[in-house]
């Protein structure tokens, strides 16, 4: 393999010293064959390469470039340097959307990871209808967040929603979950957690199942029970998986938009107006493409920081 990769880097240029046939490292085909192989390889990659160049690398560079301009819908633009970024610093709406997003993340991540971990532990410790319940918990994950938002908007409804009907039976309420500035983010976080926890649950369940049986058996023999075993044996062993799940969910939470668009339109009084919502409005309501691109770069930086923390702490690249 080392010979292969070394040769691969210099493949297009002729090798400096002519190596006579028999001295060629074993397993490396003669040069015309390798050239043919290279051509075939490039041909097979070509469609994806074209798509990635135009629709991934292009827009990524484009985003950085647009953020330094005042590009508008008309196509007119001027290079304005870091003006958009200076504007960000002074923009109250930007700071409030960043605050909303961070607060939402603080509600969503513990809720989702707690729910995932709880259900994963439950399923791990019982054999009773395990497959059935795994399916039941995972089912919301295959639906769309828009669907979840539409259903839960009705569940939260003040007048005839399910939740207020239940509260009514207990002689409580009515509570306007989506109309109350303090409740709207937890309410949306609960909806997203319902929709998505099945994914993290499966990852955690796989992690639990990969813990060697001997370890927990040894803990049982040592007399460790229940919480102590969970706290001192299971969770430490599960840490890398748990951390992976935490970061993935945090990255997802920071991109929240769909649920807010459908459930609250950012309200009440921008209490659920997230960073991506601001980006969407800036780009597609006000067509201020340059400024929207600067917002996109902020989002990218946040996600990058999350990923770097993950790499640092887990020590591998997922």
């Amino acid at each position, binding site marked *: 393999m080392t010979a292969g990769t070394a040769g*691969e880097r210099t493949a297009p240029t002729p090798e400096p010293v002519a190596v006579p046939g028999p001295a060629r490292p074993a397993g490396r085909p003669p040069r015309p064959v390798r050239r043919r192989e290279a051509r075939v390889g490039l041909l097979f990659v070509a469609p994806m390469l074209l798509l*990635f160049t*135009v629709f991934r690398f292009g827009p990524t560079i484009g985003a950085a470039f647009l953020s330094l301009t005042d590009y508008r819908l008309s196509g007119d633009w001027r290079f304005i340097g870091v003006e958009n970024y200076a504007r960000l610093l002074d923009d109250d709406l930007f700071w409030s959307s960043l605050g909303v997003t961070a607060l939402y993340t603080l509600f969503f991540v513990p809720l989702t990871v707690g729910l995932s971990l709880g259900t994963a532990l439950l399923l791990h410790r019982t054999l009773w209808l395990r497959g059935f319940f795994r399916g039941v918990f995972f089912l919301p994950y295959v639906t769309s967040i*828009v669907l979840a*938002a539409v259903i839960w908007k009705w569940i939260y409804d003040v007048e005839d929603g*399910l939740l207020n009907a239940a509260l009514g039976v207990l002689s409580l309420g009515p509570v306007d979950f989506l109309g109350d500035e303090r409740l709207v983010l937890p309410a949306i976080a609960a909806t997203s957690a319902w929709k998505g926890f099945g994914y993290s649950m499966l990852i955690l369940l796989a992690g639990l199942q990969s813990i060697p049986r001997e370890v927990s058996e040894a803990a049982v023999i040592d007399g460790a029970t229940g919480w102590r075993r969970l706290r001192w044996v299971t969770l430490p062993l599960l840490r890398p998986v748990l951390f992976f799940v935490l970061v993935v969910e945090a990255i997802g939470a920071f991109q929240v938009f769909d649920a807010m668009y459908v459930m609250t339109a950012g309200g009440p009084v921008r209490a659920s107006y997230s960073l991506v919502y601001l980006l969407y409005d800036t780009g597609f309501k006000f067509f201020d493409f340059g400024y929207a691109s600067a917002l996109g770069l902020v989002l990218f930086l946040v*996600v990058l920081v999350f990923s770097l923390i993950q790499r640092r702490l887990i020590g591998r690249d997922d």
Partner: protein
Amino acid sequence: MARLRLPVLLALVGLVTMTPFAVMVLVAFAPPGGRTLPGAFDLTRATWENFSAVLSGADITRWAANSLVYSLVSVVLILLFSSMAGYAFAKKRFPGREVLFWSFLATLMVPFQATLVPYFVLVSRLGGVDTYWGLIVPTLANSQAVFLMRQFIAQLPDELFEAARIDGASEWRIYTTVVVPLITPVLATLGVFVFLWHWNDFLWPLVIGQSSRMHTLTVGLATLEGENVAVNQIMAGATITVLPCLLVFGLLQRYLTDSIATTGLKN
């Protein structure tokens, strides 16, 4: 006592997970106006009325067709291009192979929303707003698909390809008759995920399909919600939207859950 606690807890969580689906269906079948609870739960009065109303009132059949085109065409093209690229990355040596592969993978670090604006500008300059190609083509550059394909094809023994090569088969023939049959299980898994990702996608169809005729079901459902359509009809629309997901899920449950646990597929 302790042995009973686990199943009871499981059943409770299961009940909470399923309740939203149950109320969606109940409200969808309740008589129009019957959106408050007692009425909605009276199964003897169940009716198809909301479904026929939502089907005749909105462009919902058109949206369903759009969703189907968006999802199915994307599945076919992503499977084809990613398995081709995966074969090359796994089994062919060519200049720049590692750099290309890792730069494909690196795009996972850039959230889609961060590049949404240049994406839109590019596609609209190319005349792709309100077109099927504008909707579909930009979503085909899928790093996870390429990664999964490379990992899977790399495990196949080289001798298989050598044997075919000695028999004089062309590379395309080797790809279609040796590679594709061997990776059918992983193609099926990926296909299901790509279908669900596209069927449930929202932000890109929202910005690129601007007229109602080009909405997908998720976008259409969100616009219904925004207009003053009766809750019963919205729930009927929601039921229609979720049906294909439930079908795919019902048929492939074990498959889906196992592959998430082993490969961590997530959009």
